[in-house]
């Protein structure tokens, strides 16, 4: 069956390429009932050009650490799971749902019949090899230990041993090939979002023979890569390449649902230039627009907008005596008009955030996380003033000077100036000193907790509120603002432990944690939830954007006729 489909496709491709000379038309696996669509699509070449704002830092799934890498890896590769059209993880390389033990810690996957682009079958050993490579201290992967530590059994121990320069055994990692098609994964403890984990590019398979044969050259260009996803790279000269081409992978198990034949990507780092290129018809799709460019295309059918799962907030460093006072923190958190900031100043579709966990991000049985928890720390000058006076009294002061470490997004300058003005106007006796610094300096000062207020944001790595809530546990790696609350820590620990197998209780525990963080402690002052905007040819349909991992999937895209 598979074979006949493949040869039919080849013949079709040949015929089409004869007719259409250079550009091969829409040749889907035309053995099913989608005749109508097939005809409609074959009139228009199924290809498009797009722009990206950076080069691909690496195509090695194990070393990838940024969304650009994840995006292209996600489109040319595939893991046990894949994010579907709605951003939900569904079985991919795994043939259906895995068998799970009662503790929800051992998963047994049966792999589907799938092939690498060199014809080799994708086997369970490929997963074991890739995962072991990702955790191996010799590889020094950034995301391997980050995604596996504390989740996949034995991962944290291997990393620790590597750091201490001790012996370690990669076979202690909780991943085993029972046979060619059966993979057994053992988790440290139950993980609510395990499907997301197995859909993440770090957990993709790699063909051991190929990787070892290529050695240093592996993933150095399109020829030194293997593909098991919807597309394969036919042109990519390496990590500093400015142009690359994805073409449909005929060997992909689900190739019949992939319509797009060819995607040409070029790097344009300046968002204004990208818009100019789009206007000049040089491309069908731009990278993300800087917020200054968005109002210009308001209401334009060529602009596509969506709400990101990234939330920006003010971190309030409690090492500062004044900010250790909960009234002062509440006053600051309520003293700026978020509505105005989002609609008039950012005016790119971003929405005011009265929460930590973004909206339209996670839900339980269709009910959004936000529905139950509602808005907290809403803009309210009266309340803010009351807290401010109370706080000042407790501190025994009449005025305060607070440093404000600015953000590093392109709209930062505007936002920072606005925040300074709002805080100073609404809170009498407050002086805000703006400090905008380059990225590296900002990171350093965050690390050293050398700031009072800091504009910062966070985007999740998996589809669970834990990705946000985990940030603020006492001494947590990203906390770095001296926030501590036993109750909060307890709830997060529970959510990641005993409640990990109970979605409802887990959900509620995290909602309670958020309530403590914001309503009780005003640990952070949420500002806005970011929106993203691109310009896209209106005939180009089916682009799917994701909130974590890859930015986009091209798998379901089609080019419609005029």
């Amino acid at each position, binding site marked *: 069956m598979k074979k006949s489909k493949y040869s039919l496709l080849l013949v079709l491709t040949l015929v089409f390429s004869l007719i259409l000379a250079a550009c091969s038309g829409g040749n889907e696996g035309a053995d099913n009932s989608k005749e109508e669509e097939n005809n409609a699509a074959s009139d228009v070449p199924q290809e498009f050009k797009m722009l990206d704002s950076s080069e691909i830092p690496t195509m090695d799934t194990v070393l990838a650490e940024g969304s650009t890498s994840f995006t292209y890896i996600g489109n040319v590769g595939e893991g046990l799971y894949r994010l579907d059209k709605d951003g939900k993880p569904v079985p991919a390389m795994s043939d259906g749902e895995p068998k799970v033990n009662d503790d929800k810690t051992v998963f047994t996957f049966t792999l589907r019949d799938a092939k690498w682009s060199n014809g080799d079958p994708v086997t369970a050993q490929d997963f074991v090899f890739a995962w072991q490579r990702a955790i191996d201290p010799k590889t020094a992967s950034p995301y391997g230990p980050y995604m596996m530590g504390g989740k996949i059994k034995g991962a944290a121990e291997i990393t620790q041993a590597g750091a201490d320069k001790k012996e370690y055994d990669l076979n202690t990692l909780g991943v085993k090939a029972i046979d060619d098609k059966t993979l057994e994964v053992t988790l440290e403890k139950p993980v609510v979002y395990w499907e997301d984990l197995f859909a993440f590019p770090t957990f993709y398979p790699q063909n051991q023979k190929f990787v070892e044969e290529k050695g240093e050259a592996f993933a150095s260009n399109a020829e030194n890569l293997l593909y098991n996803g919807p597309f394969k790279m036919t042109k990519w000269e390496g990590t500093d390449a400015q142009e690359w081409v994805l073409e449909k992978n005929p060997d992909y198990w689900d190739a019949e649902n992939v319509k797009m034949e060819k995607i040409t990507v070029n790097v344009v780092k300046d968002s204004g230039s990208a818009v100019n290129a789009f206007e000049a018809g040089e491309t069908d799709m731009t990278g993300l627009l800087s917020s200054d460019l968005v109002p210009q295309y308001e*209401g334009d059918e060529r602009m596509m907008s969506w709400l990101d799962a990234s939330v920006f907030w003010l971190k309030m460093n409690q090492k500062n005596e004044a900010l250790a006072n909960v009234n002062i923190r509440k006053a600051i958190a309520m003293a700026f*008009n978020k509505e105005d900031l989002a609609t*008039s*100043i950012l005016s790119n579709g971003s929405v005011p955030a009265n929460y930590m966990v973004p909206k339209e991000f996670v839900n339980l049985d269709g009910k959004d996380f936000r529905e139950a928890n509602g808005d907290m720390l809403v803009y309210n000058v009266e309340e803010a003033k009351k807290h401010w006076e109370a706080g000042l009294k407790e501190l025994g002061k009449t005025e305060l000077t607070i440093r404000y470490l600015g953000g590093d997004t392109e709209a930062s300058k*505007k936002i920072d*100036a606005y925040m300074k003005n709002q805080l100073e106007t609404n809170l009498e006796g407050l002086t805000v*000193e703006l400090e905008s*610094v380059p990225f590296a*300096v900002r990171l350093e000062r965050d690390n050293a907790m050398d700031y009072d207020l800091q504009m910062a944001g966070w985007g999740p790595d998996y589809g669970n509120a834990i990705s946000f809530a985990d940030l603020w546990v006492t001494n947590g790696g990203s906390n770095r603002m001296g926030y501590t609350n036993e109750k909060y820590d307890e709830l997060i620990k529970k959510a990641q432990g005993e409640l990990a197998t109970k979605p409802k209780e887990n959900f509620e525990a995290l909602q309670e944690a958020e309530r403590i963080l914001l309503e009780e402690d005003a640990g952070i002052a949420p500002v806005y939830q970011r929106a993203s905007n691109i310009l896209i040819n209106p005939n180009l349909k089916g682009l799917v954007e994701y909130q974590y991992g890859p930015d986009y999937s091209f798998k379901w895209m089609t080019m419609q006729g005029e």
Partner: protein
Amino acid sequence: MERKIPKELFGQAIIDSSKSEEINKPSLNFWQDAWLRVRKNKGAIVSLIIAALVIIMAFVGPVISGKEFDTQKVSHNNLPPRIQGLENISWLPFDGVKVNKAGKEFSPYEQRKVEEYYWFGTDALGRDIFTRVWKGTQISLLIALLAALIDMVIGVIYGAVSGYFGGRIDNIMQRITEILIGIPYLIVVILMILLLKPGIASIVIAMTITGWVGMSRVVRAQVLKLKEQEYVLASRTLGNSHLKIIGKHLLPNLAGVIIINTMFTIPSAIFNEAFLSFIGLGLQDPLASLGTLIDEGFKVLRLHPYQMIIPAIVISTIMITFNLLADGLRDALDPKMRD
């Protein structure tokens, strides 16, 4: 081809030995003389007047606008320029009208029921651009002055000494500037952020590191050329000190290149200040300079063109008038051009 000159044209010269020493033009010192010649130069005079107006506006503008440079009013943001009296003249860009995407004109002032007149419009935060531009002009002029000073003091002296003494001194001094230029500026600036607080002092230090090197090289080259000229040789033979030779003979002849080069240092410094403030070393918001106003305005050029065009016109006016003025001054100071 013989030509006859009529005899009548000839007259007898009366030689009066008592008058041979008489000066029949009024005695002028160097600067009076220079001013006389600048005055004859129409371009320079017009420039002087315009430059003076801009400088006066830089100080008067923020006062007469009746608005503060840092007052934000978000409901009034991104309003186009509107000036009383000029608002009904539709071909002037001061009618408070914008053109929307469909090409239709509309008045955001009417739409949002704004009574105030913002002469140069408002920015994204609803701040008055008129006040901000002139406030920014103040800062940029200060930067220009400081940059010129650094150029004149460090650059000219360093270059003159290096070129005049030559040989080993020149060699070492030039290698030092090569090292200063060779170390990436961005690295030095980032390190300065760690040590310094943003402000004028930090800007001056950042400009002092390499800002004068270009000037020193130009001056050195000219001195290398001039020191071999006869008058320098003559002066040296007469036993004049090095200091006197450099100060009295070389510097006046360097005026041309010094002035021209300063005129290039100034805009570089103004835009460098914008870069420094972007990176966190220069002046921080709400303070603005012409450089930062242009930076910010450029991002919204197609939507709100006035936000960039106005500060760009101011800076261009300043630079063009300064240059024409400098040309006039150069001609006036040039010892060879006296009549």
